[in-house]
């Protein structure tokens, strides 16, 4: 493939200390585009290989050396097309959920990987001792990382940039939480950007792989540069004209959502016991900008700049410099726990960044622990004196670092809310789907996002099908179930394209599928339209589903916590609502061509996945 891609993937076997280049055929690229799509394709092939070896993928341990970890970019990554510095990471299995591992990160690592000469990296095996990989201008080396083990994400990143004398290099690394094999561990990029969900950091740690540093001067060749330049200009103009991408996100960050979601009565509070938080203003985007913001910090090539540089100069949690927090992190650490203390949130978020943990899962697990405690289900000896009441900021900050180091009750926080709530005898208090803690929108107030959480392949996730854009930020009736199946399907398949291109999901506030075709066509030289892209997205979503079916995940797992199905929202603008999931799910399976959560033979053939 001449255009758009670097035409080179790296396969590293850490057990054998070997690496080699391989390429992906144009036929496969056309079917899966790049990024997540290619990763899913490679994982599916790997499943077949493991099965041929007689390995039962259902019982396969996510932290065994056989697990496959993939870092992937797409044709748009690293081009002048806006917001294209991102990359996607996948693992065959997540240590947190037992479903597929998947995450997407900002920063510059994705673009820098292509400049280093590669479209992606596949890692298998386990190094005997800690190692890191450098890819500088096409030259690959595996180095000893024994002395880096134990260092946090900021220390590791700056150490490697200095050592290689590459001040602007991309560094993807793990922190102490991953080294301790905490299932909530993330892979950090550029210090404060995370491949956040499903415990990918623990998979990287289980391979004794501390970091990957990438830098170079290669550039992808654009098939039709004049047409591409024109489209880049048009797309940037659209982003600059749309209030969300031109004003709201740059001025307030993603935290601008705190107030609007709360005003709709669907900001999960006290571990989802209610959707109304009377003090949400204290942790809002407006408050963050007014009292804590130092400056914006855009990712590579970004024209939006939602990233925040922040400080806390008063109260108990002073800090001179950190980044974030994002909307989801603020909600999980500060809203669901009812602490409503921005200083404490920033501190806990900082710990999650430097120790390398998923802010959503950490915050949600602490909130679940608070409800367990409220109901008297955690013995005194396990609490070790921690005052685990809702609203106690100290407990949130304390338990965050304790989770990273598996200390005391922090051990159970780090295991995630599903295992913790099972352990303490109240599994229904885990607000998770397929073991992944759900994000900051109570679906009793927007039914489509509930169907998306339930059917998400990686678990309870908003960024695989962000129907909030239509149901809360757009004009679609949020309470009806009618039409939501189709809405979810389209959002999920479109998102598969975004994560395969690979660029930023926030573009989609201003750019649609047609614009994605306008990016991909001139870059690659292909002639694809929005219909074909949506079919490719559908193919990726289905193949990912076929992988999780191999783990025994089916229709029974496409569900929501009992609270959302049975307990009426007690107060506020969404009062009285529950989620009628069965009706939407039936329609969704019908539209998808799935039977009990499994793609039918006809659908598999139709999508060319046989």
């Amino acid at each position: 493939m001449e255009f758009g891609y670097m035409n080179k993937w790296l396969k590293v076997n850490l057990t054998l200390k070997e690496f080699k280049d391989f390429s992906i055929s144009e036929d496969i690229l056309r079917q899966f585009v790049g990024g997540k799509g290619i990763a899913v394709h490679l994982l599916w092939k790997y499943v077949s290989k493991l099965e041929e070896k007689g390995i039962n993928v259902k019982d396969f341990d996510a932290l065994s050396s056989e697990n496959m970890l993939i870092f992937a970019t797409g044709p748009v990554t690293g081009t002048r097309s806006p917001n294209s510095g991102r990359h996607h990471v996948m693992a065959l299995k997540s240590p947190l959920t037992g479903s597929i591992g998947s995450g997407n990160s900002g920063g510059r690592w994705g673009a820098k990987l292509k400049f280093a000469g590669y479209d992606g990296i596949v890692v298998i095996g386990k190094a005997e001792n800690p190692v890191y990989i450098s890819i500088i201008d096409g030259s690959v080396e595996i180095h000893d990382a024994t002395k880096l083990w134990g260092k946090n994400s900021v220390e590791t990143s700056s150490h490697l940039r200095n050592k290689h004398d590459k001040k602007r290099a991309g560094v993807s690394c793990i922190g102490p939480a991953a080294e301790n094999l905490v299932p909530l561990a993330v892979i950090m990029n550029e210090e404060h950007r995370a491949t956040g969900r499903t415990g990918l950091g623990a998979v990287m740690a289980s391979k004794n792989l501390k970091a990957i540093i990438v830098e170079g001067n290669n550039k992808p060749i654009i098939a039709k540069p004049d047409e591409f330049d024109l489209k880049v200009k048009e797309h940037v103009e659209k982003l600059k004209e749309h209030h969300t991408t031109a004003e709201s996100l740059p001025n307030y960050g993603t935290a601008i959502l705190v107030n609007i979601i709360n005003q709709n009565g669907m900001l999960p509070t006290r571990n989802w016991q209610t959707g109304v938080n009377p003090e949400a203003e204290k942790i809002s985007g407006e408050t963050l900008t007014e009292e804590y913001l130092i400056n914006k910090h855009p990712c590579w090539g970004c024209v939006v700049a939602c990233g925040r540089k922040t400080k806390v100069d008063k109260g108990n949690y002073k800090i001179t410099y950190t980044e974030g927090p994002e909307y989801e992190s603020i909600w999980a650490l500060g809203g669901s726990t009812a602490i409503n203390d921005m200083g404490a949130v920033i501190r806990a978020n900082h710990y999650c960044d430097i120790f390398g943990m998923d802010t959503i899962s950490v915050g949600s697990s602490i909130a679940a622990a608070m409800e367990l405690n409220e109901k008297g289900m955690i013995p005194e000896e396990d609490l070790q004196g921690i005052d685990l009441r809702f609203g106690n900021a100290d407990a949130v900050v304390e338990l965050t670092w304790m989770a990273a180091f598996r200390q005391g009750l922090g051990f159970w926080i780090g295991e995630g809310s599903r295992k913790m709530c099972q352990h303490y005898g109240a599994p229904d208090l885990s607000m998770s789907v397929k073991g992944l803690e759900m994000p900051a929108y109570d679906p009793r107030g927007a039914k489509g996002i509930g169907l998306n959480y339930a059917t998400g392949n990686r678990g309870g996730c908003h960024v695989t099908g962000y129907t909030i854009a239509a149901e809360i930020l757009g004009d679609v009736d949020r309470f009806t179930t009618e039409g939501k199946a189709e809405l979810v399907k389209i959002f999920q398949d479109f998102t598969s394209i975004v994560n395969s291109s690979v660029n930023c999901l926030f573009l989609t506030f201003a750019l649609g599928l047609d614009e994605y075709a306008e990016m991909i066509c001139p870059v690659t030289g292909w002639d694809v339209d929005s219909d074909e892209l949506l079919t490719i997205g559908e193919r990726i979503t289905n193949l990912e589903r076929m992988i999780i079916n191999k783990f025994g995940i089916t229709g029974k797992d496409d569900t929501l916590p009992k609270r959302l199905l049975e307990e009426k929202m007690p107060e506020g603008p969404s009062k009285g609502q529950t989620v009628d999931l069965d009706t939407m799910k039936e329609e969704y399976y019908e539209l998808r061509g799935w039977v009990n959560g499994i793609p039918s033979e006809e659908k598999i053939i139709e999508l060319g996945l046989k």
Partner: protein
Amino acid sequence: MKIFVKVFASLRKKYPSVSDLNPLEMEIDKGTTLAQLIARLNFNQEEVKIILVNGLRASVDDIINEESSIISLFPAVGGG
């Protein structure tokens, strides 16, 4: 009739002290539409993208009927 108005994000540039915790208390005539309220607050119709009345979606042509209604006004916002 008394109502409470809350403005968010860039709309606070005109009303910096108004927030969720400190809404603007206003007297309006019965039959006032949201479009009329928005004009009275000196906003352009285009800059107010999302209107909630007591947390439920409303449009500019809707009339404010209930005493003590909470009107939440937003520009186009997004995140995730």
